[in-house]
């Protein structure tokens, strides 16, 4: 019964919180937000696919903080690169071999790569074993691949335990 009413309990909670953030905290909004979030989850539940859940939430939090710091730090680097003359740029494509599996972890990895400056993920290969990345400035290809694998893919593998 409870399972049928709340097919996605975490999503329901997040929706309710967002509703309360966007409005004021009052009993009326609590009830209205509760009804709306339960309704949305009931409608959306059949669309959900199975995907690996976060096994280690603390590590995920550390990962998010690390990515945030990386974004800020390396944005200065890209700012310098953008303002320097075009001739000194060496843009290029890199094919990144993936050890990670599952759509959700791969989506997180691709988004992280896009958000950290200097790299944009372009496409996956059909068999989901390779990720094509466009890099703003390549020194050596191996260094780029090593950095991404070490710094972002390794923690993600631990977080999703796959």
């Amino acid at each position, binding site marked *: 019964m409870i399972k049928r009413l709340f097919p996605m309990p975490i999503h329901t909670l997040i929706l309710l919180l967002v509703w309360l*953030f*966007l409005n004021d905290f009052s009993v009326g909004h609590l009830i209205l937000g509760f009804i709306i979030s339960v309704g949305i989850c009931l409608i959306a539940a059949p669309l959900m696919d199975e995907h690996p859940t976060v096994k280690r939430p603390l590590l995920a939090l550390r990962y998010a903080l690390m990515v945030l710091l990386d974004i800020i730090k390396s944005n200065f680097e890209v700012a310098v690169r953008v303002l320097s003359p075009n001739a000194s*740029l*060496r843009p290029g494509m890199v094919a990144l*071999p993936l050890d990670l599996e599952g759509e959700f972890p791969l989506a997180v990895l691709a988004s992280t790569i896009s958000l950290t400056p200097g790299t*944009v993920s372009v496409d996956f*290969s059909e068999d989901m074993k390779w990720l094509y990345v466009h890099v*703003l400035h390549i020194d050596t*290809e191996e260094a780029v691949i090593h950095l991404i694998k070490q710094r972002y893919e390794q923690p993600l593998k631990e977080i999703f335990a796959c």
Partner: protein
Amino acid sequence: MSLVEWIASFLLVMGGVFVLIGAVGMVKLPDVYTRLHAPTKATTLGIGCILIASMCLHAVRGEGFAIQELVISLFLFITAPVSAYMIAKAALHRRVPMRDGTVNMALAEQARERQSPTAVPGSATQQPSE
């Protein structure tokens, strides 16, 4: 001026400068793929700074802790990589040329067909590492 206003002013100026750098990169960089880098990152960080400054100011002015700004910046941080990915894919699909001197330009062909880079012998640059 209070301390919070100083911090907010600093964040506002930093945000403005980053937004401007994103736009300068937009005009100056040589092809679509390099241009993707400037707006998706510099602009997103810039707007994040401005939103945090706005959050501080609203908290100090005693209208309660306005969390809406946080929702907006979270939304932008989630959607920016997705739209960058979609634009890059569309550019590849339409065979928008890359700038001369791009490293591994042959990989674009395989990325468009969604093959693995080892599919065509000779053009592979990297063996899968375990």
